[in-house]
């Protein structure tokens, strides 16, 4: 595992509102995410963890500081370039799956490549589909799939374009515990077997425990950055720092 940073943030600031009502969701966050690492970002509600992810993924524009993905500085990109960067370098997994109901599971998985106008690498797709255990469900529409299955489709969709980094926003938030652990295992597998870099925002200590590293935010600042350890350790960590 190399230590080349895939995602970096330097003195990241994000302020919402103006004047007295202004809130600093991010108040000087500096962070490096090396390639092939599984990082969990944690913190209580309002700690800025979602804002951090949005800024790192190029969905939100920070009010200060620098973000780079795969060596590209996001602040220098216009909307079009930023969209292309998200398309080519970033994979997304959402809490509410966000699959297109009109497309089949397979079409949803291949959607990012279609958007990019790229050909589907059949072998790679088969490998991913196998990994997420969807073989016999590929022709189904999302409405015919369970929540866990839908989220597995979403994971496959995030991996299909071999992105530099996958951002997962509370990926287990809408799932029961069994489905949750399946999805988490998948993410773990993608890091271990495919060398994928994954950043996961979660408030669930059990979820965070599967990561390599846990970054804890409170009031827009990093209050802890270290190895994940067991779920109990993460629990304790959260109690002490946040």
């Amino acid at each position, binding site marked *: 595992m190399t230590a080349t940073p895939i995602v970096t943030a330097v003195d990241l600031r994000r302020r919402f509102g103006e004047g007295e009502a202004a809130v600093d969701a991010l108040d000087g966050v500096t962070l490096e995410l090396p390639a092939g690492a599984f990082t969990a970002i944690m913190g209580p509600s309002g700690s800025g963890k979602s804002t951090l992810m949005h800024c790192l993924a190029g969905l939100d524009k920070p009010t200060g500081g620098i973000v780079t993905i795969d060596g590209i500085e996001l602040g220098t990109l216009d909307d079009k370039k930023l*969209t292309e960067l998200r398309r080519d370098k970033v994979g997304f997994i959402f809490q509410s799956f966000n699959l297109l109901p*009109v497309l089949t599971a397979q079409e949803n998985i291949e959607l990012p490549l279609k*958007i990019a106008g790229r050909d589907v690498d059949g072998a790679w797709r088969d490998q991913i589909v196998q990994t997420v255990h969807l073989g016999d469900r590929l022709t189904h529409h999302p409405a015919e799939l369970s929540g866990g299955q839908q989220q597995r489709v979403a994971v496959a969709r995030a991996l299909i374009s071999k992105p530099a980094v996958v951002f997962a926003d509370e990926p287990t938030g809408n799932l029961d515990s069994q489905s949750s652990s399946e999805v988490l295992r998948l993410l773990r597998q993608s890091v271990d077997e495919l060398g994928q870099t994954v950043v996961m925002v979660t408030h669930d200590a059990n979820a965070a425990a599967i990561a390599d590293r846990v970054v804890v935010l409170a009031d827009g600042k990093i209050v802890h950055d270290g190895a994940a350890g067991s779920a109990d350790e993460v629990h304790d960590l959260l109690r002490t720092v946040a």
Partner: protein
Amino acid sequence: MFALSLRGIATRKLRTALTAFAVVLGVALVSGTYLLTDTINHAFDEVFQTANRGVDVVVTPSRLFDQGNDNASVTPNPLPASVLDQVRRVPGVALAAGSVFLPGQIYDKDDDPLITSGAPMFISDTTPRRFDPLVYVEGHPPQAANEVALDKFSADKAGYELGDTVPISGEGPQERFRLVGIAKFGDANSLGGAAIAVVLPPVAQRLLDLHDEFTTIQVAAAPGTSPNELAAAIRAVLPARAATVRTGEQQAKSDSQDIKDNLSFLRTFLFVFAGIALFVGGFLIANTFSITVAQRVREFALLRIIGANRGQVMRAVIGEALLIGLVGSLVGLLAGFVIAPALKGLFKALGADLPSSGIVLETRTIVVSLLIGTIITLVSALMPALRATRVPPMAALQEAASLPRGRTARWRTPLAAAVALLGAALVLLGLFGSASGGDAAALVGAGAAVIFIGVGLLASHIVKPLSLAVGLPVERLRGVSGRLARENASRNPRRTASTSAALMIGVAFVAFVTIFAAGLKASIADAVNVGLKGQLIVQSSNFQPVPAAASRTLDEVPGVGTVSGIRFSKAIVAGKGRPTVTGVDPTTIDDVFKVDWTEGSPATLIALAPGEAVVSKDWADGHDVRVGQQLALTSPTEARLTATVTGIYDDKANLLADVTLPNAVVIRDFNVPGSAFLMATTTPGEDVSTVRDRAERSVRARYPALKVQTEDEFVSDQKNQINRLLALVYVLLALTLLIALFGILNTLFLTIHERTRELGMLRAIGTSRKQVKQMVRWEAVITAQIGAVLGVVLGAIFAVLVTIPLESEGFTISIPIGQLIVLLVLAGLFGVVAAIWPARRAARLDVLQALAYE
């Protein structure tokens, strides 16, 4: 609940505005039509009041026939001088004067007819000051035989000033006069858009080939005699059949009423388009309310949970419809003030200048406009409102709340099919049933409306295959955005169906008139090919008759062979109704025109003598007329004559009308001095266009209003006339298409709103704004194409159905494939235009907000 309706409207301003717009356009057309026609009618009222000012009693020739819109000349004989003498001897008459007022030609400085818009031109004579409605603004009335006065409108139009030479012609060749007076008609510059040349009475008599005869006798009562008493006294001395006696006031009303009757078709014509626009608007409203009710299921459920009953939910939706309807109607009523002059300008651009001064707003216009718009909105919102009441309270607590299927849901398809069949039955009944004229048209119209509703409901079943057919090429072309566009278009088939149904209706009408007009044009070409043997056709450029003497002028042109004139009039035939009469020249007609014979031969026509008639097969069949039978005819001049039927023809070219008589009879007994047109052959070996040029020079030197045309020129002239009418119809249908455009726009906005999160996700994973725009655009194109394909098919079916009964009358069905393809392409562009704004909005969605959107 009403407060809730208001709140609902306030929070959905854009949709409300777009929905209201559907009502606005239709109502604007209704109010604009009323405003325009009321204003025109009012203008004529004023004109005729002015014309009859100072006149206590008016005597005119009795009319047996109304002047229809066809070519038939049904002018009664003018009143002879003896009638004027009789009137003058009636006690209580202070002053009586005869005057003439008949169509003639007035020319501009280039010797072209002064008015080409179809408004008439008249020659009249000076009347005693007391009766004269003219107010001279420059110069004086004509006092010498070579002097003329013009109405101010005509003088201004042609740029004539006092002292200029004005060419005029009546029944004979053109003559030149010196302009000595320019007059207004009371306050108006013209008599309702017509041009009038006033000359001395003997001059008018000569120009119009009259012999001390009058078209009007105006009478002033002596002091102490009321107009009514005087009218009664005059009526007592004149035979009722010979003359009609009215007071000046009655005459003004009668004149005005005649014009109004002739113009009533204009109102009906415009109302047809207003009706179509309102109908399409209704579709749009129903669709919008259906979508929003579906989107507000949770809201309604919540209302039910906190104790609202079904009636209250219903009232909330209906209240919103009521407000939209009222406001839309009000705006529509006001927009009528823009539409009315626009319509007038449209008619003017197409060559029909209608008179108007000021604008007349009747209470009826306000009431009808507001009522019709509001009622249409309420009726259209009724079904969605009923569906809203079926939302169970539980829906508020469910994850994915959707509308419950109604009890009638499974009957929807059979019901829709039944509705469509009912419509088809109505159309067929109207076309082939026993109803006639207006009733048949009403049946066909109602049937078409019902079919549209039925097909609009059924259309949801073909949305998927159609969007596949239309969408596959798009997908191949545009990749993922094409694919998503196709899927989105067929995601909610009913919604797509009713959105495209609005366009379907507009396109169906466009396709219908396009096909019908193509058939009409083909029929004209066919008729000319089938019937015409001559090479030249002479007619006036403004629908006025060709003077009899012009026929001789044409005959003398070197290279012109046989010349034959055709005349049209009407007759009353005892027990056989009122057939249209054609006058032909038996010795020459066979040289210029060919007709098929059921009984008889061309020789029958050549031998046709006074006292004989040949009749059309259709008329003979319809009125049980056989060869050898005697017909007892009464002409518009009340001449009574008998004619023995000597032959029955089947005229595929439709030139010869019901009953054909020799011209000699039609000229003498029907008072039709001029021909409707002349046909002529060219001598063999002569180049037709050379002869044409030569003939045109000779004829126009004396009769500048005439034009000489070759067969091809005649056909293209006729086609141009059809094209002008077609242009008018297209413009009026464009309003309907505009409503459909707003329908697509509105649906797109609503669906984009619904798919906010999807759009957010698509943007997040790297879909560019351009791709999002493409996706929305192609969805609109597919929706529009579905409507266009259905519309073209329906329009073609209607056109074929309507023309089948006309086929026996020589109508040729012709499907203009090229134009229909252009129509489909235009419909696609239409979708592109409709999508501009929604696509921009979809592309501009903020990704984070869209993702967080519930």
